[in-house]
Every structure is written in structure tokens, then in C-alpha cells.
């Protein structure tokens, strides 16, 4: 009976929850009391049995994996997403730049070609297509003197199928130039000559180019001696090329 007061606190003692001083007193009592020490032993064994029995359930690997995926560190995810975003933005930027450059170039080139074609058609539709009417290159060339800020050579057309009809001043992109009209068979061919430096041509036109597919004309352009030449007409591509070669040879 003397142990009853101790035994009411036995669980608290075994749980290590008694105050330090009381724990020490309890230690001393249990060591000297066979009844309390036996009781304490069985309770400790019971605690261990509950501890073992209580650790019964383990999460499945699938559930663990699912949870790990759900709780993946967000900084990594946002880091990854950040890089994906940067990469995507980079791709968009590059594609956008290339596309705009391509479209800009194409648009610029096509725009120039279209304007050249327009000039060609407009002049042919005019009642007075040329300001200087002459088949003589030595007449036509001097006519441009003082009217355009550059000089150019006209090819010798003897022994060729081309006939010079005359010339006129023209403007492209607010730049003065020479517009020469030739005949080959029943086809009219326009030759435009501009100063390369004062003419804002697309980069693609620094190289020789052929006419775009959507134009109903054949066309050739090149740069030579600081001048930009355009040869355009509904004549065959071979005729256009032949006249272009004559100009190239004369330059």
C-alpha cells in the first residue's frame, strides 16, 4: 500500500515527464522496491510492445513518388520554367528577328522590283514614253548630262537585235536616274540606271538578283561601277540577259 502513491505516477515516471527532483527520488524508490520495479518492467515492456505494434503502416513506393512529385521544390521548378521561358523568349526573338529581316528584305526587294515594274509599265502606257527620242546612243547619253548626278555608258547595239528607242529621267525612292527603252522584236525593255550609293536598296540587291516569281516580267539587276542597273521587260529571260551583258560590257 505504501507504493500506491508511487504507482499513480509510474507511467509519468516511465514517460520521463516527472520533474528532475522527483525523477531522482523515483529512481531511488524503484531500485529498492521489488513490487514497483516489477510493475515498471512490465509497463516498459508494454510501452515497447505498443511502439512495435504501432509502427504498422508504411507508405507505398507509388504514394511516396506521387507525393515527391507534388512537393518537388518550387524554386527548381520555377528555375526550370524560368529557363524555359528565357529559351522560349530567345527562340521567339531569333525567329522574330530572322522573320522580320527576311520579310523586310523580301518586302524591300519586292517593293523595289514592283516599283521598277510600275515605272516600266507606266512609261510604256504613256503617250510620250521617252523624252529623248533617238536610236543613237551618242545622242541619248549626252541628253542626261546635267539632269542626273552621274554618267553612264550605253552599249553599242550594232550586230544585236536590240534597238534603242530613247530615254527619260525617272525617279526611284526620290533618287533621279536614267530610264532607257529598248526594243527587241515587238517587246519593250526598260533599263534603269541609278547611283548605287544614293539609292537605299535592300542588302540582297548588292548582289545580282533575278526577278521575283510574282512579277510578270523578266528582270535582272546588278551593281557595277557604283551604279545600280535594272533591266526589265516582257521579253524572254535570254533577251533580258543579253541586254544586261551588253550594258555590263559597256560599263
Amino acid at each position, binding site marked *: 500500500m505504501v507504493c500506491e502513491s508511487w504507482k499513480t505516477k509510474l507511467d509519468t515516471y516511465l514517460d520521463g515527464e516527472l520533474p528532475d527532483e522527483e525523477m531522482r527520488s523515483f529512481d531511488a524508490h524503484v531500485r529498492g522496491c521489488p513490487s514497483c520495479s516489477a510493475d515498471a518492467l512490465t509497463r516498459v*515492456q508494454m510501452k515497447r510492445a505498443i511502439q512495435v505494434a504501432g509502427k504498422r503502416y508504411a507508405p507505398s513506393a507509388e504514394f511516396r513518388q506521387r507525393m515527391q512529385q507534388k512537393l518537388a521544390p518550387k524554386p527548381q521548378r520555377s528555375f526550370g520554367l524560368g529557363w524555359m521561358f528565357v529559351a522560349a523568349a530567345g527562340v521567339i526573338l531569333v525567329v522574330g528577328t530572322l522573320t522580320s529581316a527576311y520579310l523586310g528584305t523580301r518586302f524591300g526587294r519586292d517593293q523595289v522590283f514592283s516599283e521598277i515594274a510600275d515605272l516600266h509599265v507606266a512609261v510604256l502606257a504613256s503617250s510620250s514614253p521617252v523624252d529623248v527620242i533617238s536610236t543613237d546612243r551618242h545622242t541619248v547619253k549626252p541628253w542626261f548630262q546635267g539632269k542626273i548626278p552621274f554618267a553612264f555608258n550605253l552599249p553599242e547595239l550594232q550586230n544585236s537585235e536590240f534597238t534603242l528607242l530613247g530615254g527619260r529621267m525617272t525617279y526611284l525612292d526620290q533618287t533621279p536616274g536614267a530610264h532607257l527603252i529598248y526594243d527587241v522584236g515587238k517587246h519593250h525593255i526598260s533599263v534603269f540606271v541609278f547611283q548605287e550609293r544614293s539609292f537605299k536598296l535592300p542588302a540582297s540587291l548588292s548582289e545580282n538578283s533575278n526577278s521575283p516569281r510574282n512579277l510578270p516580267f523578266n528582270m535582272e539587276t546588278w551593281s557595277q561601277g557604283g551604279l545600280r542597273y535594272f533591266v526589265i521587260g516582257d521579253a524572254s529571260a535570254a533577251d533580258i540577259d543579253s541586254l544586261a551583258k551588253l550594258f555590263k560590257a559597256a560599263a
Partner: protein
Amino acid sequence: MPHFERLYNFACWLTHDRQEAEDLVQETYAKALKGFSSFQPGTNFRAWIYKILRNAFLTSRTGLKAAATVPLDLEDEEEALPAVNETPESILLRRSDGQLVQQALEQLPVAYREVLLLCEVEEMSYQEISTTLAIPMGTVMSRLSRARKSLGESLRLQFQKG
């Protein structure tokens, strides 16, 4: 994932259903992450997250049902009851039948089961249990005492049946 295995184990003991336990653990971590700002550094993290799990359980269908069927604690009895002198534990230990203990634990009311598990399996201090279960320290002690007594009686009954 801190305390993942132990939280899952505890959730299984509360729900008696692995799927429900998974949902409970998942809900616990989701709430813990969402409300992590409410955790005060320096306080007991384990008690905090177990409390989240237990509260989630109490608001679940199983938890509400369990709470409705749990007899009111004898916590109005201020003094913790002394353990009985009868030693079903010694009988149990002689048989080395862990399954009997598991069955006895399963049959305990959830209020007793959880306090025993937190104390014996999770080895929480009374203060931690008090925080987790949101009950006073004295209630922790009395409930533990009754849980042990109830477990002992359950074991004795099973032993007699067996």
C-alpha cells in the same frame, strides 16, 4: 518530406484505411505548405504538422463519425487512474503476440488510440501531445492513463477469448 512515414502511419491508425490515409497525408502537406507562414520558428514543427493532420482527420467524414461514436472522455476525473495490478502485459509478452496489441489498438476509441500512438510511437512529450491535440497537459496525462488501462483490458479480453 519531413515525418512522411510517421505521418502516414499515424493517418492509417486514425482512418483504418490506406486510401483515406494517403488523402489525409496529402491534405496535410498541402495545408502545411500553404500555411507555412503561420508556423513560428523555434516552436515544435512536429507538433505543428501532426496537429494539421489531426485537424484534417477530425473534419473528414471518418473523423466526424469517429468523434460522434467516441464516448466522452472521463477527463472530468481529475486524477489519473493507477494502472491495474493485473498484468495482461506479462501474459501478452509471454505469447509474444504483436498482432494482439495491434488489434487492441484498433479497437480503442480514437481519442485513446491517438494519444497512445503520439506518446509511445512518436515518443512525443506531454507538451507536444498537448499542442498537437490542443488539450491541456493534465488531460494528456489522464487520457494516457485511461488509454493504457483500456488497452490492458482489451488485451485481457482477447487473451481470455483466445
